[in-house]
């Protein structure tokens, strides 16, 4: 049987994906992560000398650190299974991608295992983030 025919046949018997339900879950969970982020940034503004201009960096650092801890404790994985993109798209997904890759490869050694594979998933985020920042900066300096 050709692979295309097999795919067609298999799709007939596959259970339907609950797209709407998944979207609603992602929306609420993603929104909740953003509310927590907003609360953290107000905390920094209220109790420390950060303005709305400067509060972005500590907030992002805190949120990434929090998701790294939650990944280590196995909480974020459950959240990821429940919310899908809702937990992966916010900046917390970055922390999760780094730590989950590190945990997965720790049996291969500290240097080649953890060190070599830590940014396997998050590397593309850094690469495209830096590249798009470069393009935006270029456009801003030209116009």
């Amino acid at each position: 049987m050709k692979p295309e025919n097999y795919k067609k046949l298999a799709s007939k018997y596959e259970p339907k994906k609950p797209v709407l339900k998944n979207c609603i879950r992602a929306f609420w969970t993603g929104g909740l992560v953003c509310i927590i982020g907003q609360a953290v940034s107000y905390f920094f503004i209220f109790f420390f000398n950060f303005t709305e201009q400067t509060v972005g960096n500590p907030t992002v650092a805190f949120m990434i650190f929090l998701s790294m801890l939650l990944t280590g404790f196995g909480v974020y994985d459950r959240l990821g299974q429940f919310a899908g993109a809702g937990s992966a798209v916010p900046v917390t997904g970055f922390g999760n991608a780094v730590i989950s890759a590190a945990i997965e490869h720790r049996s291969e050694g500290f240097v080649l295992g953890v060190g070599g594979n830590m940014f396997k998933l998050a590397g593309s985020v850094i690469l495209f983030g830096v590249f798009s920042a470069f393009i935006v900066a270029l456009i801003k300096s030209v116009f």
Partner: protein
Amino acid sequence: MKKWALTILLLAGCAPEHDGTVILETADPDAVQLDGKHDGFAEKIKKEADSIETIYDTAVIKGKDQLLVAYKVRHLDRFNMKEIEKDLDKRIQEMESTEEVVVSSDYKIFLEAVRLKEDMEAGHLTEEEANKRLSEIIKLKEEMA
């Protein structure tokens, strides 16, 4: 039981703040003048800023040679932040202000302006100390990310 605890916790968040500087509510602090004059110029500036429809809360502090106008912009109008700032700045300049004018929509600056006003009213600060605090707030405003 857990549901009740969560409901109580969420409702607790709705309790009013005591310092009048809550994030979404209007604090509407009186204008403060730290230059020793009582010509009501700071109050005039506040009225002018309040007359802009997109602004819903303003704090004005007039120091010896600096004037700080901190304001909050309605949520959906935050897309036009630059135009609002430009408009407000122009209106203040037209009032023949000779001081260094600093306008800011930053929440931290607003918060610090209200705190300064409250400390002044409570008698914790002398006029000189208040002027120093004003300069520090303006310095904070000029810090970039």
